[in-house]
């Protein structure tokens, strides 16, 4: 009766790349630089390595599950009650994750382009289009992703190229003035946001078309590598232009865009670029919301997952308006608490699953 949606392996990788890059590309350079200075890109590479390891665990779990839906093989591995115990925090964190991205966009707009519009109006508009996108379904979203991705990356590249006249290589040194700990700190932040969030893709991976399932590992690793490379470029670009100020100014890419000035015609284009960067936020949130309703529908054994879209979106919308309404509070949670939260709620269940499935596999073969 209900046709399971399926997407190609490459399309899944595009969604993956989008999710990892979407909001982080604008936000990431600043907190990393404020703790790790010019070594921020090293932090990122470390986090990327960790990300690769996490992807390996994710892929292992997915393959060990035999292509079945995430909750299905979790239930068979852990049993009903333990699944609930483990997945409830997962779902709860994901609720706020969705809200959190929109909170970030809200602040972005408020501080830059739409200073007068009230937060609930901006967030409301965004949630409207996010919910409608999720309603269109996974296949439609996968179709939309490629062009939006090119748009986003195109603008990032455009910014980095247009400010190249302002690059000062000397800002990249010194790299490790205060030892390794700041680098590790930066890696810790980057691990929390966005890499540890990749575990939620466990919900989507079973939707890859069966005949392309063999290629998914390769595609996802490539996506992760592209993501890392893009981050490094963004960090290096920000460092080379903004220097020591990178850590102080939020939304580094936007700050770079503000500095673009070519004769008198191409100036103040940060508005256009700002709106284009929103595409990344919007689509990432849509992916996260889609994952959330799929997770909830599977957990609660609901047939029609799309029924949940609007209420869940409404809850996330209200969360975005009632929690962490000040920028400092948001900064605090993202930089301090988030890595711990994602480790406990996202990583721990999947790692646990990996261990259990691993033991089961060993027991089966012996």
């Amino acid at each position, binding site marked *: 009766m209900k046709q399971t949606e399926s997407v190609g392996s490459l399309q899944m990788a595009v969604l993956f790349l989008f999710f990892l890059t979407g909001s982080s590309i604008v936000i990431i350079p600043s907190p990393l630089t404020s703790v790790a200075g010019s070594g921020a890109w090293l932090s990122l590479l470390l986090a990327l390595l960790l990300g690769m390891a996490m992807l390996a665990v994710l892929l292992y779990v997915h393959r060990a599950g035999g292509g079945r839906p995430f909750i299905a093989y979790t239930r068979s591995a852990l049993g009903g009650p333990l699944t609930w115990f483990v997945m409830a925090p997962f779902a709860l964190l994901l609720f706020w994750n969705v809200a959190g991205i929109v909170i970030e966009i809200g602040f972005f707009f408020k501080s830059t382009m739409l200073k007068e519009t009230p937060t609930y109006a901006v967030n409301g508009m965004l949630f409207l289009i996010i919910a409608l996108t999720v309603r269109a379904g996974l296949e*439609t979203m996968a179709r939309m992703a490629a062009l939006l991705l090119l748009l986003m990356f195109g603008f990032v590249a455009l910014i980095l190229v247009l400010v190249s006249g302002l690059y000062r290589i000397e800002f990249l040194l010194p790299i490790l003035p205060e030892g390794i700990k700041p680098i590790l700190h930066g890696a810790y932040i980057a691990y929390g946001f966005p890499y540890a969030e990749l575990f939620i893709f466990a919900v989507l991976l079973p939707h890859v078309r069966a005949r392309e399932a063999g290629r998914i590992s390769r595609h996802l690793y490539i996506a992760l590598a592209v993501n890392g490379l893009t981050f490094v470029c963004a960090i290096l670009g920000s460092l080379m232009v903004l220097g020591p100020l990178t850590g102080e100014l939020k939304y580094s890419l936007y700050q770079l865009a503000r500095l673009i000035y070519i004769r008198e015609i191409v100036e103040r284009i940060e508005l256009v670029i700002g709106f284009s960067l929103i595409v990344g936020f919007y689509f990432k949130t849509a992916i996260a919301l889609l994952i959330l309703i799929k997770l909830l529908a599977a957990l609660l054994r609901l047939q029609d997952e799309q029924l949940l879209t609007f209420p869940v979106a409404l809850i996330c919308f209200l969360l975005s308006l009632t929690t962490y309404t000040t920028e400092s509070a948001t900064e605090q949670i993202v930089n301090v608490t988030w890595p711990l939260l994602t480790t406990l709620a996202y990583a721990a269940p999947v790692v646990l699953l990996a261990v259990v499935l691993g033991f089961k596999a060993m027991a089966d073969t012996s």
Partner: protein
Amino acid sequence: MTMEADSRSLAGEAPIAAELASNQKAMTEAFSNSADLIVQRWRFGALPGQEVLAVYLDTLVDSKLIARLQEQEAFQHLLLHRIAEYEDRDEVERAPSRPMPDEAPLWQAGTIVGTIRASVGAVLDGKTVIFLQHQTRAFTFDTMDVEQRHTSEPITEPSVQGPQRSMIEDLERNIGMLRNLLKSPRLRFDYRIAGKESRRKIAFGYLEGAVQPDILEAFLCRVKGIEQEEIVDTSYLEACVGGDRTTPFPQVRYTERPDTAVLALLDGKIIALVHGSPTVLICPVHFLEFFTSSEDYYCRPVFSSLIRMLRMAGFLIAFMLPSSYIALSAFHSELVPTVLLLAILKSREGIPFPALLEALIMEFFFELLREAGLRLPRPVGSAVSIVGALVIGQAAIQSQIASPVMVIVVALTGIASFAFPQYNMAIAVRLLRFPLMLLAATFGGLGIMTGLLLVYLHLSSLRSLGQPYLSPLAPLQSGRLRRMFLSIAGPRQAKASSAPKGGRGGR
């Protein structure tokens, strides 16, 4: 009325009677005594068996041809002596004895029918039905001559280079034109008769081997119930074939040029023609096709690629220019270069309305002007439209209802929307401009962004006969995109099929 129709249809299955009188009565009743139905007795001699009953519709037939036939000896001989010998025309060809030399063409233009219903159908098709004494079969002869438009220049799709023919209202002649341009045995046509009362002949055509099987299947599924519908024009077919009706975007395309139809067939599309309409329906269609026109293939690839990009730019302008102006002037004035900004502000001095209202008023008048221009008779048309445009533009500026910049914006938008080759897409864009303007006025750049994303989302979820509407943009297919915009692939080749049937291959 319906009871008579029922009894008529019951009588329709009745076989032809051996008596001329009862046949005469049956045919007259079937046509409700219509004044243009001619029922005549023709006598070819004094004997009782040499009388026949001819039935035809005066308004459909060529009366000169009928008069000539009555004189022809071969025709008389055929009717009085030959028809009795054979069950049907095919038997004639198998018979050992050859018919008289003059008879052969007469046989070819006629058929033998056995029921009243078949006779009625033949008369409606412009044939003359001739009932014979003591025969339970009748001979029908093609005598149709109805006023036809000659093929002429395409009215709605003019082009600079390339053939200047357009299709006419006759189904067979149109199919003939297509076959003349595409001489492939794999070009296949299916006929249907639609509607109980209108009995329109409809044809579906496709190039076997080029069209994908799943598309064909989807299409045939959609047109299953077509016999029940009263089809007056090709656009009525859109309701069956077109799929989603809640979208402003068209999922089929129309053309009246045979060369465009042939190109579509070569591309693996299915076309539909209706007798009485010069327009051909083409499906499935995807969004980017609305920016192509057959003229692209008559120019050099570089030029046609550039012109396609120009059309896309036109689309974006037609869609986004008014809203961008509103957003820029109301929300984001810092984005405009200072010199231009000063000019805009100076020109907007004294305008009592906010930008949105100004834009809505001007756009509304422009749309009104456009619609009015369509309906004006030709002698009056051009004068009124020029005066109207001048008056509205000039007067609006002088009375300070609109600023010069706004008039320019509206004019540019109008011009850009005329650059579309396809009318039904142009309408969609005209409609969608207005919600986008409202969004821009409320939320500025964010509103435009949201509007664009919503349109993109909507287009991505549309399908035309099961094919994604936005392909090759979504899902992204770089090869097809490149070919579409850069036309580097070289001379055009017909789509090769995955499982080629017999006959000529590839080309």
